[in-house]
């Protein structure tokens, strides 16, 4: 059985940064099983978490003054919340790990502290029958665990309420951007090809110069929709994300075509602007999956409005862009 400390090394912190940027995030896991934190005894609490190393590190770095057992269940390296939603963080999986670790021979009590974020996947009332341990939901945040345990395992409203602060939104943006690099490359290739179409059939010079303009527009849209919109989320008007992204994209687009007014104007500029609006709106709409407050029903509803607007704007942009060389 492994003993872990609460201090994160530079390797751990580097691993956190890599995971946040989506680098090898799918392989950032630890072996499931029982770990000691400090010098736990048979009376020490058992804290359950996922085997995603980011989850594990987030937990242990808050436990510097505690002696506890940490049971990492096999969520295939996925974090607590997503694993609970997918069903891999479940009463069955917890029971499996409790049995495998022979926990009943290690601790005198029969209680597991579960992360509150695991609740969508763990029917805690089924645990006693499955493994002989009761499950108790601790606070949402690991940082509140010491206070929770010291307070007779009572969580107040704040400990059980989700927040979505600026910092919490900021750390989500790198992975959102890292997830679109493949579509970005494909789109960029297509844009270079479309940019070369003109009265001379195909002009490589145009493909290059206009392609750069179009790619710059795409990058601007990514910044507006996948970075600025999440950061300014509560201050952008409207409740629907596609609308917030559309507004951010409109302003970003305006800035982009003004900055490039020497290189393009008229219909071409309008095309670039419409493209930035479309892509920014789509990326903002996609951010709903990363938030802790949007409902699936709500996202489906706003997609029925947002997608047609985005497709329409993208089509308009493409038509204008391809037609412009023919119209002099």
């Amino acid at each position: 059985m492994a003993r872990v400390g609460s201090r994160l090394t530079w390797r751990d912190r580097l691993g956190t940064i890599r995971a946040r940027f989506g680098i090898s995030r799918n392989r950032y896991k630890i072996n499931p099983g029982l770990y000691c934190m400090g010098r736990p005894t048979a009376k020490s609490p058992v804290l359950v978490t996922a085997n995603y190393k980011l989850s594990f590190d987030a937990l242990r770095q808050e436990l510097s003054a505690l002696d506890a057992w940490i049971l990492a269940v096999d969520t295939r390296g996925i974090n607590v919340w997503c694993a609970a939603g997918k069903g891999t963080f479940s009463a069955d999986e917890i029971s499996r790990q409790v049995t495998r670790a022979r926990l009943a021979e290690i601790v005198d009590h029969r209680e597991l502290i579960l992360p509150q974020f695991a609740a969508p996947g763990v029917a805690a009332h089924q645990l006693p029958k499955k493994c002989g341990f009761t499950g108790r939901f601790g606070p949402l945040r690991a940082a509140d665990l010491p206070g929770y345990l010291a307070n007779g395992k009572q969580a107040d409203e704040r400990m059980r309420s989700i927040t979505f602060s600026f910092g919490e939104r900021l750390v989500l943006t790198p992975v959102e951007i890292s997830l679109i690099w493949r579509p970005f490359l494909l789109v960029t290739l297509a844009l270079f090809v479309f940019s070369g179409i003109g009265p001379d059939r195909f002009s490589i010079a145009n493909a290059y110069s206009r392609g750069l303009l179009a790619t710059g527009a795409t990058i601007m849209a990514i910044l507006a929709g996948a970075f600025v919109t999440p950061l300014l989320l509560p201050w952008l008007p409207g409740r629907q994300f596609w609308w917030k992204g559309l507004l951010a994209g409109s302003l970003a687009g305006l800035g982009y075509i003004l900055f490039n007014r020497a290189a393009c104007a008229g219909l071409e500029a309008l095309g670039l602007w419409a493209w930035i609006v479309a892509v920014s709106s789509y990326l903002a709409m996609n951010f709903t999956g990363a938030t802790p407050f949007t409902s699936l029903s709500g996202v489906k509803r706003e997609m029925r409005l947002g997608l047609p607007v985005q497709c329409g704007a993208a089509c308009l942009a493409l038509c204008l862009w391809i037609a412009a060389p023919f119209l002099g």
Partner: protein
Amino acid sequence: MKDFRYLDNTAILRLNPEKCIGCGNCATVCPHRVFELRGKKAVIIDHDGCMECGACATNCPAAAIYVNPDDGCGCAAYIINHWIARLTGTSPKGCC
């Protein structure tokens, strides 16, 4: 959550007061504090705050709660993948 509100009258969440045994699990696990225990029954005090995570339904021993059962992290790309998969008859790609 008070700071962030999403779309009103959209979340699919139903509590059957007749089946409710007043255990308070839903009020404990809900990360948006949608439920409150009043006397011997749970009540929904903030329906529009619901994000359909299902924590309440999963932890209700009396099966008194119904939440939108559709699978999905609620991200647009995932939903689009599912729509495409349904049209083409293939299996949908996983989520991020």
